[in-house]
């Protein structure tokens, strides 16, 4: 449980996709989200699906992991499909039963839009599965660096995110410890009337907040003692490197968008 929190949903590996620079992956995902909307007929959707599937295969991630990513959003897809199939009243009627009328346009539209959803989720899940949250944070810091000129606190944001990621497991341990300590004193968290349970909750939350604030302060002091004074001229422990692989993938995405543009109706 605590372990799964630290690395997020990351699946360790050495595949081509894993080795890509997080900046490439972020940029590719960002453009992909727009490109998906270019597809509007059978050819473009086939092309997009093939491109997405080849990325999934290159990542060498077991398919079950990607399917797991679909699970929370599955009902949205089913709902979208049903909504279109049942409510579109265009084209030729395929089927009629009582008030249910199904038209071919509705089926086609429902299928395309569900597929669009599936493709978007596949790509975004792929990024999450092949990149740790800390890598994404580093990538974002680098990509947004130009915005520093307009007073956007890019470095600070990245730092706060790293602090947060680092302290989630610590605070989880802390929560467990407090729960055990309070249970040892006789607090009952899981049964009893509602008001009693709310009181029990207070006995957990107050120590949790106080310890979190104490940690925050100690951390700030520790940082200042070591000479932290903002992002100016700071060197990096984790370096990002842009290789020919990254250029190659970016080029493939550009050619995909050109093809989609040509094939769309």
């Amino acid at each position, binding site marked *: 449980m605590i372990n799964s929190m630290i690395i997020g949903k990351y699946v360790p590996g050495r595949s081509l996709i894993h080795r890509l620079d997080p900046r490439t992956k972020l940029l590719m995902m960002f453009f992909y989200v727009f490109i998906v909307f270019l597809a509007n007929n059978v050819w473009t959707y086939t092309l997009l699906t093939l491109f997405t599937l080849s990325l999934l295969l290159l990542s060498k991630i077991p398919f079950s992991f990607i399917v797991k990513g679909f699970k929370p959003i599955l009902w949205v897809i089913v709902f979208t499909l049903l909504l*279109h199939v049942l409510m579109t009243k265009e084209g030729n009627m395929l089927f009629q039963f009582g008030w249910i009328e199904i038209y071919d346009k509705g089926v086609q539209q429902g299928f395309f839009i569900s597929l669009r959803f599936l493709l978007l989720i596949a790509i*975004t899940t792929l990024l999450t599965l092949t990149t740790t949250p800390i890598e994404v*944070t580093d990538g974002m810091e680098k990509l947004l660096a130009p915005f520093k000129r307009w007073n956007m606190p890019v470095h600070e944001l990245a730092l706060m995110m790293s602090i947060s990621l680092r302290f989630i497991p610590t605070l989880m341990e802390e*929560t467990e410890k407090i729960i055990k300590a309070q249970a040892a004193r006789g607090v009952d968290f899981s049964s009893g009337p509602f008001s009693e349970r709310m009181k029990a909750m207070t006995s957990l*939350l107050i120590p949790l907040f*106080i310890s979190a604030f104490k940690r925050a302060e100690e951390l700030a002091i520790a940082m200042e003692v070591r000479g932290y004074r903002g992002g100016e001229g700071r060197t990096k422990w984790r370096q990002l490197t842009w290789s020919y692989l990254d250029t190659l993938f970016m080029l493939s995405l550009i050619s995909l968008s050109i093809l989609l543009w040509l094939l769309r109706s």
Partner: protein
Amino acid sequence: MTKTKFRTIDLTFIGMFAALMAIGANITSWVPFLVIGGVPITLQTFFCVLAGALLGRRIGALAMTVYMLIGLFGAPVFARLDGGFSSVMMPTFGFILSFIIAAYVTGFIIEKSNDTPSVARFIVATLVGMAINYVIGTNWMYVAYRFWAEAPEGFSYAMVWSWMLVPLPKDIILSIIAGVISPRIYAALQKSSSYSQRTA
């Protein structure tokens, strides 16, 4: 956000509060308590309001932004241990966005009081925070279905709201309870040395 100067302690407070949000969202998934009527409750709204109240509107809202970003970047910090960029496509993502504004507004309400804010003020703040949560979350849901799923005719605004009425009573009760508990946490933190140093 025109002023971008941060003290080191602001940075650590924001990071820590974003981490606390992650705990609040999933506290029930590894500690089997606070399951009411079979549904594990999340304490997200509660923590979000506290972020506004304890850190102030600017830092509180930033803490919620950081929470949203680490979730998007793949840490499973959202409710039901969700995370990753695909969360943006969830129709419920509006709720996560609304935490930023809810924290800002509740922070504003608490800051308006001259000395120690009263329990009534906290209850008002939490209820307003919850209302913001619902209004933004539900509208987002509607827009998400309307435009991303390209929902055809017959899908109405009222339909989305009628879904949201189901968990509403539970959330109102929880907000009031949060309003009662928060001043105690607030007072406890005022007493503890680290927090008062911050405000001094």
